[in-house]
């Protein structure tokens, strides 16, 4: 073989080596081209959808500095289950509670209740007064004020027990009160507190009746106290995002909103435990029923105990589904859409499941509030109907829906035991606003155009099946700057901060009044069996 031929053969070999070595590099090139095209397509999708809108806006800022501000003394009136939670929101938990959640965290690393409580901001306040008509509850409240296992360490003061709210309000050292009694006491205590110059955090529903709502509104306005109604949904990031989406008109004209409650357990229907220590020595029964329209003698105590511990089951003390569950969902929609007070309300329902016959071991005395209940709220000036439908005998999670001509927002709702859910926005296949993008395939009506999943910071128009699933299920919690927080704590903090700087808290008396009147109209319609009309000029129900 000539030298030239040999050299040519070597070159051929080298070239073949090179080609074989780099043979799959073009595949990598194809990969990169397709990756770039996909990223570009996703970016176009996002730009065309909603993510740019929400990404620019950060979480609602509730972090106001209180460290150098005035120390506040607070009192709790009604230290039951919810009262205990609210006081924990202010930074005071019973020793029993901190011990239990600490042990739970040791057993289950995913149980963050203890961490969440201990990492709450110290709100620079003291719990100095406790008023409850049941001795055990009052003692628990005192215990909570003394427990040094809390954010901020050793409490500056501890609480005194008061037998009546009047005695507690007479203490000049108390700046503000949390009212978490049964609903029939809300109005009287709020009015007395306002007159005594105390700021008020009142648990929902605001009042038991329409007349009480008017009186509370006037008292708060006249005295100028800082009033917060207990709808902690006002602190939930998802609702702020939902409001931005609605305000931008991305759902199009909305003519129908559907709200639901779906529970299926005796506990969910308010058949709560009757405390073994409850008797006519430990409970001030006469005081309890003082503002209720019908009075019942203690007698053998059986019915009185049921009514005392399961008060939501009777119209004498509350309004059942209306004040407990509709009120939360109504306020959420009012937060998102500013719907205000409806013009007309009709409602109907019945006691179809929770009877003595069906539950002889649990129910001793029949309730009078319905367990299946529906209400229709009409807003003719806004071309809007709001439907509420509740069942306490099926837990099918229907969620809540804001149905627009161009898109529908599906939300988890607040009725599943108070957990915080995300939402999903899906375009309507016959939308006018999105017609071009639907026709060109940029928007697919079978897939959400926007998904908000709390906790995961998932703000993205292009989401995976898994993240959509978790958003719908609402597995996680509300977050601020990556830290898990309890919305109840944020709501109490919002109130205390507003007291200090003279601003209005998020669920002030004006929006509280909307909730109170809307719920009262629904209750009254059920009780009277007819449509109720709101007369805003004379502030009357017709």
């Amino acid at each position, binding site marked *: 073989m000539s030298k030239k031929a040999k050299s040519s053969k070597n070159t051929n070999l080298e070239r073949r*080596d090179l080609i*074989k*070595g*780099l*043979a*799959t*590099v073009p*595949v*990598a090139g194809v*990969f990169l081209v397709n*990756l770039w095209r996909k*990223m570009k397509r996703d970016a176009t999708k996002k730009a065309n959808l909603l993510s740019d809108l929400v990404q620019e806006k950060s979480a609602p800022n509730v972090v106001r500095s209180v460290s150098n501000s005035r120390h506040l003394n607070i009192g709790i009136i009604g230290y039951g289950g919810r009262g205990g939670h609210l006081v924990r929101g202010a930074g005071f938990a019973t020793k029993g509670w901190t011990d239990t959640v600490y042990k739970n965290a040791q057993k*289950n*690393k*995913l149980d*963050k209740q203890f961490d969440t409580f201990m990492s709450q901001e110290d709100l620079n306040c003291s719990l100095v007064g406790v008023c409850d008509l049941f001795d055990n509850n009052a003692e628990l409240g005192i215990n909570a004020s003394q427990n040094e296992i809390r954010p901020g360490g050793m409490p500056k003061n501890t609480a005194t027990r008061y037998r009546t709210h009047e005695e507690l309000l007479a203490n000049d050292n108390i700046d503000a009160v949390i009212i978490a009694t049964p609903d029939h006491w809300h109005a009287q205590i709020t009015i007395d507190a306002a007159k005594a110059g105390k700021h008020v955090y009142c648990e929902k529903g605001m009042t038991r009746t329409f007349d009480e709502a008017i009186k509370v509104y006037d008292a708060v306005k006249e005295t100028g106290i800082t009033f917060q109604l207990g709808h902690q949904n006002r602190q939930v990031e998802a609702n702020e995002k939902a409001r931005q989406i609605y305000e931008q008109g991305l759902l199009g004209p909305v003519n129908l909103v559907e709200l639901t409650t779906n529970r299926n357990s005796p506990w969910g229907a308010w058949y709560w435990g009757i405390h073994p220590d409850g008797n006519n020595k430990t409970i001030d029964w006469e005081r309890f029923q003082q503002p209720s329209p019908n009075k019942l003698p203690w007698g053998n105590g059986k019915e009185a105990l049921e009514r005392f511990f399961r008060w939501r089951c009777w119209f004498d003390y509350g309004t059942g589904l209306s004040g407990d569950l509709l009120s939360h969902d109504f306020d959420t929609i009012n937060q998102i859409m500013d719907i205000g007070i409806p013009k007309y309300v009709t409602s109907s329902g019945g006691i179809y499941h929770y009877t003595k016959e069906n539950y002889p071991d649990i129910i001793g005395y029949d309730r009078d509030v319905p367990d299946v209940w529906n209400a229709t709220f009409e807003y003719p000036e806004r071309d809007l109907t709001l439907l509420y439908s509740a069942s306490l005998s099926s837990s099918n999670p229907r969620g809540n829906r804001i149905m627009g001509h161009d898109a529908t927002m599906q939300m988890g709702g607040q009725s599943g035991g108070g957990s915080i859910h995300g939402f999903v926005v899906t375009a309507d296949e016959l939308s006018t606003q999105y017609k071009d993008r639907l026709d060109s395939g940029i928007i697919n009506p079978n897939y959400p155009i926007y998904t908000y999943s709390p906790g*995961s*910071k*998932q*703000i*993205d128009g292009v989401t995976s*099946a*898994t*993240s959509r*699933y*978790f958003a719908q*299920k609402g*597995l996680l919690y509300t977050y601020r700057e990556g830290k898990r927080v309890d919305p109840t704590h944020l709501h109490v903090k919002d109130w205390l901060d507003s007291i200090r700087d003279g601003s209005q808290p998020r669920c002030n008396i004006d929006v509280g009044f909307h909730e109170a009147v809307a719920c009262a109209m629904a209750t009254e319609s059920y009780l009277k069996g007819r449509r109720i009309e709101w007369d805003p000029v004379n502030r009357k129900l017709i």
Partner: protein
Amino acid sequence: MTILHSSIKENDFQFYGLVVLRVLIGWHFLYEGISKLINPYWSSAAYLLDSKWIFSGLAKTIVSNPTLLTISDNVNMWGLTLVGASLLLGLFTKYGSLTGMVFICLYYLFAPPLLGLEYSRPGEGSYLIVNKNLIEACALWVLYCFPTSQVIGLDRFFNDSK
């Protein structure tokens, strides 16, 4: 060191079948990794929270500890990307296929489709004990045993036995 048997090299049909398998698995890994890298909200938490069987305790430990979760997220994002590039380009493929196999085996073990285990994540197929993860892990084992990158791939330049 595993050396590609000459009879495979000489049989184009068998040999290129293995190369195609390597490139496709590489592509899959590479996109799984990159799609996580470019999504600022991706986290392994959702997968770990749904873990069942022997590693569910470890999964809970990882999710409950922000440092461990960050490590887990980064190992996944970068690991998948590098393994993908390795298989696709045929570079250090021996290590790539072994690492890939470990990854996929872990995914399998954290959430195996065994009798009696129910997952809340929506599934994209029907599986009983054997799922696509297990099959992909086996395919990577095959690729480890037949290092085609010694002939087609950048490993060729580091290999004297071609």
